[in-house]
């Protein structure tokens, strides 16, 4: 057992993957000497050299496009997008090429490319540095989309993502980078498959569904709700595409109520998919509609307002209350 911060856990996971497989490459802006603006790739260039940890020109489409080419040549590139809001110049390469090329090739091509995206708000940053663009990717067939919420998952999931033969969009909750926890780096017995979610708190009255940064917020809300006598179950989805549907449906069938929480705008967000799917599959068990807590239908606001924009304990609890109002 080692105590690792989430960012260090990612770093160790990548290091392990690079040691295990010489085809694994790291690429992105400032990932080399600087170790990335969040230091997630700290020390890797020093140890693996400039050919394996590549400081790229400043162009996100170029990063993903060349990563695809490297993958076609047998490499396994792990790309860093510096901040969530800067993934959009790469949207075309991700959506029309990375996601679709394997199917286009009738299976002749596999693209084991990982796109790491530090995501979400809460760090007092300027515009474009606090976004949660996951719904753009969950809607894009051909991609796997995952989000880690804690150091242990960060450590295992990044390795699994790198080993996956499919392209993986890998969300990292930037405001949790510095949170620490024990991680067992000596065994893989405890690893959960990459496409499985995890119940992080048992409960009987309502299910909170979250991923990435909001898992912690939901756990806090669950604890607070307990004081009101409500037994709250919390699920950490981990994988958004594919969804661990059995996990979600089993829980909601038991509790009869669900609230989905994410930082991205509610409107057309991933919570909509969850709500729609849960309602379809648990219609007779639902005591209240699946409620959604998330960002508003506005651009991410200036940081002085982010506490209002971001779901917090109070807004989650208010939704829980509303759910019980039905």
């Amino acid at each position, binding site marked *: 057992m080692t105590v690792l911060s989430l960012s260090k856990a990612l770093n160790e996971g990548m290091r392990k993957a690079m040691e295990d497989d010489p085809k694994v490459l790291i690429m992105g802006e400032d990932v080399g000497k600087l170790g990335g603006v969040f230091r997630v790739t700290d020390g890797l260039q020093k140890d693996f050299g400039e*050919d394996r940890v590549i400081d*790229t*020109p400043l*162009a996100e*489409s*170029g990063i*993903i*496009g*060349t*990563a*695809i*080419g*490297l*993958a*076609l*040549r*047998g*490499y396994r*590139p792990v790309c860093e997008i510096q901040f969530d809001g800067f993934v959009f*110049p790469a949207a*075309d*390469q991700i959506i*029309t*090429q990375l996601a*679709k*090329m*394997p*199917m*286009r*090739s*009738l*299976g*002749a*091509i*596999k693209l084991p490319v990982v796109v790491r995206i530090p995501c979400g708000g809460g760090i007092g940053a300027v515009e474009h540095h606090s976004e949660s663009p996951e719904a753009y990717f969950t809607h894009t*067939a*051909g991609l*796997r989309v995952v989000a880690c919420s804690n150091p242990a998952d960060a450590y295992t999931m990044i390795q699994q993502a790198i080993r*996956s*033969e*499919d392209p993986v969009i890998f969300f990292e909750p930037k405001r949790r980078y510095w949170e620490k926890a024990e991680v067992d780096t000596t065994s893989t017995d405890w690893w959960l498959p990459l*496409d499985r979610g995890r119940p992080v708190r048992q409960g009987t009255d309502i299910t909170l569904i979250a991923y990435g940064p909001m898992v912690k917020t939901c756990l806090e809300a669950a604890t607070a709700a307990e004081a009101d006598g409500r037994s709250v179950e919390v699920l950490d989805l981990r994988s958004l*595409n*594919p*969804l*661990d*549907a059995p996990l979600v449906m089993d829980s909601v069938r038991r509790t009869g109520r669900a609230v989905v929480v994410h930082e991205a705008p509610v409107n057309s967000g991933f919570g909509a998919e969850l709500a729609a799917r849960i309602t379809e599959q648990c219609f007779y068990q639902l005591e209240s509609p699946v409620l959604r807590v998330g960002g508003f239908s506005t651009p991410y606001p200036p940081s002085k307002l982010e506490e209002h924009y971001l779901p917090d304990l109070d807004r989650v609890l208010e939704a829980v209350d509303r759910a019980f109002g039905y």
Partner: protein
Amino acid sequence: MTLDASRGAQAPPELVQLLTPEGERVEHPDYDIDLKPEEVRSLYRDLVLVRRVDLEAVALQRQGELGIWASLLGQEAAQIGSGRALTDADMAFPTYREHGVAWCRDVDPVKLLGLFRGVNHGGWDPKEHNFHLYTIVIGSQTLHAVGYAMGVQRDDANAAVIAYFGDGASSQGDVNESFVWASVFNAPIVFFCQNNQWAISEPLEKQSRIPLYRRASGFGFPGIRVDGNDVFACLAVTRQALKNAREGQGPVLIEAFTYRMGAHTTTDDPTRYRVASELEAWKLKDPIERVKSYLFKNEFADQAFFDSVEGEADQLGADLRRRCLAMPDPGPLAMFEHVYSEPHALIDEERAQYAAYLEGFSE
């Protein structure tokens, strides 16, 4: 120098030409090529055969057997010349029009039809031929090509990469980013731009006010303009560029100055935007006629040879047609295949549901 843009553009003095439209061999200070008669005959054969593949495909589209077709008519020399310059270890990234390059890479022409017939999005294994799938999103493949070339560098392999794109594509961000990458990493790549003067209805002037080969200089690597209707020149220049790339001298941009003799695709109507005289002027520069003249004048081939190639072309065309019609349609559940390389719960669920739904009808 007889080749010009025929839209009043100056005859580009920089253009590398080794065989005139009249079939005369000419000298060039920097490029030369020594071709034995049988090599020239073989080039001629390729030119004729790919033109026939193309004509047959156009006919198949007319008859409703293909949804659409992008003709290479007029660009045979650029494609055969550059395609034959590749070694087996080299890798090529085409657009959607490189049927001639596909031919050089031994891709069975019928496999090209799948995409246009709507039975698949790409019907060959790129690794088997070192010929990537057709890419429809303009310019995207140039970045894949550079990435691949960066892989070649890391493998320390004796290989180079060629990326095809059009004059229109030169405006895309991706293409310019690929120039940045290639230059910064000194990647072993040849950018082969077929300037066929048109991007659908837009003439070159909508993409650049200077010759395209000069774009490379802005990124710090050499650019060369070659007579794209001269298969000798295309072969010589591409061969040299690939060799340089393999030897670690980095990227080169080749602009093959050519002309799209046909419509953009079979759904296009070029009479809406270009004048007939332009086409007529370019017909005089036909890439096949000049090789024929050369072979003939030099008595490197006789009528029997030309007839035999013609016969081969007839067979190829008939064969292609037959095999096109025999192409099986994919089954409905095929659309769920290969979306992911590893099992995926949602796909499995949807496949099962849709299979059940189809079952419902058959009951």
